């Protein structure tokens, strides 16, 4: 996890903007696990995590020189991740409309070993009941982002973030059944 102070992060981003591959690598290594967690929470599938993370970071590498405020790199990166996940979910929805799926293809199970704990299984079940945009909110809160940062990432107001977060938490709580309660 990248815990570097904001100024160090800003400097690293500026180096990356000048085309320094080492800085780019440091940024990717510093954020890859956090972005992976965010992507997993948003898509609720582990088998698309690497592919989508790759798309997110490729977009990051190609667009970083256009980032105006290097200090807002994190919000910008998570916005890229959110948009990539939403595009993916839209594509999947369209594919389901245009592809004649058989009933057994509707809920493709996770690959073997993908879900290795009951807690995670329960959380995934609960997340599946929440809208993807709200899953993004919950994942960002788990990331330790403040309401203001989340508002910047999602391009909305702090008040809207608070209201949506309250609703998303309620929904998650409603559907989350810890393993010992089963």
């Amino acid at each position, binding site marked *: 996890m990248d815990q570097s102070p904001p100024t160090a992060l800003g400097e690293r981003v500026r180096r990356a903007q000048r085309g320094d*591959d080492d800085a*780019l*690598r440091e940024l*990717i*290594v510093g954020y*890859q*696990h*956090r972005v*992976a*967690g965010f*992507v*997993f*929470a948003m898509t609720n599938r*582990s*088998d698309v*995590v*690497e592919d989508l*993370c*790759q798309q997110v*970071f*490729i977009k990051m*590498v*190609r667009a970083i020189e256009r980032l105006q405020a290097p200090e807002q790199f994190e919000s910008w990166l998570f916005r890229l991740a959110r948009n990539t996940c939403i595009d993916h979910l839209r594509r999947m929805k369209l594919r389901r409309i245009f592809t004649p799926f058989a009933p057994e293809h509707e809920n493709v199970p996770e690959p073997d070993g*993908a*879900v*290795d*704990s009951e*807690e*995670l299984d*329960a*959380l*995934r079940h609960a997340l599946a009941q929440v809208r993807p945009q709200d899953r993004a909110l919950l994942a960002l809160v*788990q990331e330790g982002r403040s309401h203001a940062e989340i508002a910047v990432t999602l391009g909305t107001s702090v008040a809207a973030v608070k209201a949506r977060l309250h609703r998303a938490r309620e929904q*998650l*709580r409603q559907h*989350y059944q*810890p*393993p*010992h309660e089963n």
Partner: protein
Amino acid sequence: MKTESLAWARLQQQAAAQLHPGFADRVIRAARAGAGVAPQFLRPFAVCAAMATLGLLAVSFYRVRASTEENARNLAGWQEIAAQADELDQTL
């Protein structure tokens, strides 16, 4: 909710485990290799545009050819009429 926090932590671990070693290098290579290549979502549009262009070319080629042939036929008809008129003038 302690178990929920534990579940989020597991989700994070599970997600991190999906990234294979050398992920950063692969990303940088792919980003550099694909710079300038049209994004994947544009490919179907490019194929559609190419097909539409081919279709338009085929239609305009057919129309030009049909119109040239019709002009040639009309010209031949008028030439024949003009020749008959000349012949008639001479006989009168």
